[in-house]
């Protein structure tokens, strides 16, 4: 079977033999690796600047196709980075397509030296149980002068830099619901 590249190459050879120099056309046959990709907008997960990125995925989302990320570059529409990225951000493809990437929660039991895989449901349940226990232990309904405060001083919450406004809204609701006072964001760490 003749591939597109072979076809062009043969064409170039024939036309060159006829006296036309089409050598530059060979270079044009160098395939653009993002010409058939799906573009997905996202946020760089590294620092707190929150640069927007475009993730290029190859694969047409057909039933038997597993899409692969082939390229990540800056999103020119973002007012934050306007298409540029730093050396870490531009390497995001390596972060996504990586053998060493975590795909499930790991649990290191107290006193143990090794991390063991854990099911998502178990992990969420365990976290919830710890939050409930801690809250039961430290929740203060009234302060020393008898005023209602409903606060939880023995738990803190840390937000991530890539959280969207919507997620932050939900995190805040959750925090107020529990009565957490200590609240910090990765951007100030």
């Amino acid at each position: 079977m003749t591939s597109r590249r072979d076809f062009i190459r043969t064409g170039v050879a024939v036309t060159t033999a006829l006296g036309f120099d089409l050598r530059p056309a060979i270079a044009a046959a160098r395939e653009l690796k993002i010409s058939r990709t799906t573009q997905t907008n996202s946020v760089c997960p590294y620092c707190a600047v929150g640069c927007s990125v475009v993730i290029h995925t190859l694969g047409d989302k057909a039933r038997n196709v597993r899409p692969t990320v082939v390229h990540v570059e800056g999103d020119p529409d973002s007012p934050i980075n306007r298409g540029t990225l730093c050396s870490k951000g531009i390497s995001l493809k390596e972060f996504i397509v990586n053998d060493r990437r975590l795909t499930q929660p790991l649990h290191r039991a107290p006193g143990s030296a090794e991390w063991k895989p854990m099911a998502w449901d178990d992990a969420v349940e365990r976290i919830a149980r710890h939050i409930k226990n801690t809250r039961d232990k430290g929740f203060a309904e009234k302060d020393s002068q008898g005023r209602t405060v409903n606060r939880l001083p023995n738990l803190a919450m840390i937000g991530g830099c890539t959280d969207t406004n919507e997620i932050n809204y939900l995190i805040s609701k959750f925090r107020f619901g529990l009565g957490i006072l200590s609240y910090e964001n990765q951007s100030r760490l």
Partner: protein
Amino acid sequence: MQTVAKLIDTTLCIGCKACEVACQEWNDQEFTMGVFNNTYQTMPDLAPNFWNLIKFNELEIDGAQSWLMAKYQCMHCADAGCIAACPAPGAIMRLPNGIVDFAQDHCIGCGYCITGCPFDVPRLCAKTKKVYKCSLCSDRVAVGLEPSCIKACPTSCLTFGSRDDLKFAADKRAADLRKSGFQQAGVYDGPGVGGTNVIYVLKHADRPTDYGLPKNPSIPWTVQLWKGPVKLLGNLVFVGGLLAAFVHFIRVGPKESHDE
């Protein structure tokens, strides 16, 4: 078609190396572990799978510590030494937009381009026996995108556009720098090789060698001789020989064999 170019304003470079990683990522280059040589440089030198290096030149100028960052990659010369030296048809070509591009399919791995390059850029891969270098992302430029390194640069130290526009911008920037007290600021665009499509704005344009740029780059005389007069002479001898044989055939006739 307009000649495209890359402008490197070295005064704006912060040495973040985003352009290096962008180049590696776009061209799907394999990661090679670097070596520490007492500078902040990623690698000591270019490699077949490393086409773009920021040189961190640390030196003292007029009693002050200076850090002269210089982006080291193919200069895409108008009068390219690699093209002059290359014997394989179609292996190195100058695109209509001025980009000097290597087609590895046609490369025979002789390494003449390495000898011919006044900036010491092409690198021979020991495994594939082909020569590699920056292509100025000709695949991206062909569809109207900027090269990968230029897109990534967070300080706008790198800009991309038509050569005339960038030359104008570079001259203006150098004049601004001179006005702000950097007396030696100037533009470097490869004198001696007909101008390069990579233009530098240097704070110390009087000493380009400190940036790792040759003061007066030119195609080595060996390559010029070999590809010029010697090649012509060789061709003359070849055609002359054929002609002489033909004339001899006409005048003397074919070789006769005598029985002993």
